[in-house]
């Protein structure tokens, strides 16, 4: 049985690198070089930092979690706020279950389920520390949460509100969980201390692979490629030498001023659902050459990849300082920006 070679990527907080200061060129980017507008801004944005936003995979509904203790549901097409839930503490992550319900991860240690239509909410259970991330696996029908209590928990959403009956299992991680990503049955967990574990959701007893991030510094965000066919990626699940040799990394979100390089943390990544190209957002406020008022906290493509939601929200990288108001921009994605660049010359016409 051969393993599918599914690639995944990291982004991290890099330190300055004086050696490379003189050899630095433009950031590598897959988008074509066109100046683009930032898109339109959604009305009624959260009043504090945006921790995550996600498009539904069925419609243009957008779920947003925020430090202002709310979780909000927007209809992007109509630019309306459709639902809002208030938590006891900041909401650190959210995800859709389907178009009528979703899950959230709270700094109050709770994992909640929200029914958008009725405004009802259930508690799936609790961690021992703030819950940093939440994902829903359509393949396994489970909610997976990662927390700063150094554990990963899997939940069955059907058992909600019945004193941890929803809990399926708790899996100890080497460090505080910082980021999760899912593709099919595969789960990638990135923690503090640059640990990366790869699990198979069907066998959570132990990680399928244990790794160290190939980047030197703190892992901010890890995302899986939506499909793993033949694309050169930074890392591959496949442990064969051939696949591992294809790893690569590139520098982005950097700026050189007066001989000094400022290297911005990369906060967010989003894969285009059709082309497999991806966008990154960093503390410099740039997403593929478009400048936003402040850091990019989160990114999400809608189901057909024509819209990109950008959370322009200060990510606390410099502590509590005055900053631009938090905002959500939805921008139309030009196909040329996200289409992979053709490698071969077209043939002459007949």
């Amino acid at each position, binding site marked *: 049985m051969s393993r599918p070679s599914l690639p995944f990527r990291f982004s991290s*907080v*890099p*330190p*300055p690198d*004086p*050696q490379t*200061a*003189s050899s*630095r*060129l*433009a950031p590598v980017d897959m988008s*074509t*070089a*066109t*100046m683009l507008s930032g898109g339109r801004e959604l009305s009624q944005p959260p009043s504090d*930092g945006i*921790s995550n936003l996600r498009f539904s995979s069925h419609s243009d509904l957008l779920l947003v979690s925020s*430090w202002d203790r709310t979780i909000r549901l927007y209809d992007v097409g109509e630019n309306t706020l459709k639902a809002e839930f208030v938590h*006891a503490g*900041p909401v*650190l992550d959210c995800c859709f279950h389907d178009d009528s319900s979703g899950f959230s991860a709270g*700094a*109050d*240690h709770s994992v909640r389920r929200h029914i958008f239509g009725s405004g009802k909410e259930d508690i799936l259970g609790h961690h021992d*520390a*703030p819950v*940093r991330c939440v994902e829903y696996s359509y393949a396994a029908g489970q909610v997976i949460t990662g927390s*700063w209590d150094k554990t990963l928990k899997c939940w069955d959403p059907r058992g909600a509100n019945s004193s941890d009956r929803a809990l399926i299992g708790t899996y100890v991680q080497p*460090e*505080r969980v*910082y980021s999760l990503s899912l593709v099919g049955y595969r789960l990638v967990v990135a923690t*503090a*201390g*640059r640990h990366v574990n790869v699990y198979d959701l069907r066998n959570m007893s132990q990680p399928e692979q244990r790794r160290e991030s190939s980047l*030197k*510094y*703190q892992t*901010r965000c890890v995302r899986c490629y939506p499909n793993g066919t033949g694309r050169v990626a930074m890392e591959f699940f496949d442990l064969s030498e051939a696949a591992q040799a294809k790893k690569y990394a590139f520098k982005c979100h950097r*700026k*050189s*001023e*007066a*001989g*000094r*390089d*400022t*290297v911005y*943390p990369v906060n967010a990544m989003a894969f285009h659902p059709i082309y497999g190209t991806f966008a990154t957002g960093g503390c410099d406020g740039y997403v593929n*050459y478009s400048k936003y008022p402040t850091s990019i906290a989160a990114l999400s493509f809608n189901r057909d990849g024509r819209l990109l939601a950008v959370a322009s929200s200060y*990510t*606390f*990288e*410099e*502590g*509590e*300082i005055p900053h631009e108001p938090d905002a959500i921009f939805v921008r139309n994605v030009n196909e040329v920006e996200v289409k992979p660049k053709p490698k071969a*010359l*077209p043939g*002459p*016409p007949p």
Partner: protein
Amino acid sequence: MAHVSTDQLLQLETTCGSFLYELQIIWDEVGETDTERDKMLLELEQECLEVYRRKVDQANRYRAQLRQTIADSEAELAAICSAMGEPPVHTKQPTQRVGNLKEELNSITPQLEEMRKRKGERLKQFLEVMEQIRNISVEVMPSEYSPSRHVDESDLSIRKLEELYRQLESLQKEKNDRLKQIMDHLSTLNELCSVLGVAFKETVREIHPTLDDTEASKSISNVTIERLATAIGRLREIKIERMQKLQDLASTMLELWNLMDTPIEEQQLFQNVTCNIAASEEEITESNTLSVDFLSYVEEEVLRLEQLKVSKMKELVLKKKTELEELRRQGHLVVEEAENEPEVAISAIESGAIDASFVLNQIEGQIAEVKEEAFSRKDILERVEKWLAACEEEAWLEEYNRDENRYNAGRGAHLTLKRAEKARALINKIPGMVDTLVAKITQWEKERGIGFTYDGVRLLTMLGEYTIVRQEKEQERKRQRDQKKLQGQLIAEQEALYGSKPSPSKPQSAKKVPRTSTGGSNRRLSFGGAATLQTPKPDYMHSAKSTRTAKKLDDLGTLSPGSRGLDIAGLPVKKLSYNDAITKHQEVGMPRKPFASLIPVNTIPSAPSMPVIASTLEENQAPNTMLLLTPKNPATAAAVPMHVASTPAPTCLVNDGKLSVVASVEETEYSFEERRLAFYVGGR
């Protein structure tokens, strides 16, 4: 017959005589009277006369008829002859006529027959010719020609026939000419169509359906020719238009190739395009060279090349920019203009607002300027380097002098000793160096009327500061000497009192020495102090810049983001206890280390693999080395948000003498969110 008739006449005469004799006999017998006899004889005579008259009349009529026939024949003959343009057969006059009427008629009849036959033949010829003429005329101008099948019989002369033949011939010639013209047109059209990639058959069929048919005769009318000519004109116009477009594309392509050194293999794919770059309209004959598909294919390639060019230009601009920056760095020139210039330029190039070559030229100009300036600064800079190197040695020596174990014979101790000796010699030269430098700089500044800056700091100021610090240090040294003397006295006193000698290495004065020395080293930062701190060269800038911020320590609001980041690093010190605040868990005690009064309390244990602790210990022992350690240890750096590492903020803390705080805060890795939550909880 004449004989016969004469005989008959004779017989008739005898018969008549015999009849008369018989009559006389009868009469005699009858006894007719003479009167009666006379009467009978008269009657007889009269009847005879009547018969004669009738016969003569008859003969006369016949003669007249005969004459009429002859006259008619002659007239017809004459008419035919005249129609055929031939001289009349009979030239003789009726009076000279030979022979009688019948002979005449007999002689004329065959002639007439002959002439009629000839006339018929001629007529047939005429009809044939005219039919042909008509046919051709219809072909040539179908609308104009009104067909008359009638032949004018009055003129059937050879001349007329020849005339007709000539007409026919000219018509045939015209037809041939037209056919030739059409064929020419068709071949031109075919060529054009093939070059332009247009379907020839359809085009031709549109003009006239017969043209496409190879079997049937082609339409050769004026309208067709006109249409053909129009079609050719139209296609030629298109061809010229497309040719110009292709040539434009080809020249652009050549330019781009030239510009980008496109490999020959890639060029060969478009050889057939570029070979036409200077071709005239007639010279482009290869099929499909100007087809819409081909043009768009070429256009696509040009577009691709252009995009490539833009990206290459972008690269070039960045490269030049880097070169410029490198030159500036080498010349220690700091430019205060827009710092994100490359990004601005790049995005402008991408949007097409600025021509990349313009930006390039601009940068080239700047490079030339910087080179020129660097050249004028070279002499002074070399001296500055020497001076800085000397300062470095001075710092090292100071450090070395403080090392109480410096005379321990370890490995390489003799080398260090040698270095120290050299350093001492070098340090003695520093004042001289500084003086020359000041003189040189003053002259330079006088010549140019501008201040000589080094990494953005005025060099004269740096030198001035250095001199002041040096003087201060001298004073300090003097003070120390005095103190030592005092101590010596004290020891002597103690000895006198207790009879024992305390260890000379007792660090009673150590407390003071580090402070003064750190103070000193901090001040030294203000003149390219990074060198003093032995960090890699590119850090010059940072440190040099930092000095300015360091000077403004009290004014937190204007601190660089780096130092702000450091401030935040200090934040969790008090507030990373969000866990308790939210969930009311039991409070954890806050152990404090001496010196590190603000160590963060971690409910979240730090990563066990962090090698920072070891280095922290070292740092606590020798605070001054901390800055050397940080860049050397990537694991430490990993835990530090990049601002901390990239900015000179640590110098501020060195200044405060709270080095260990920094070190211990950085022991544990925290994400922004964890810090934020800590702040959030703290805020509430």
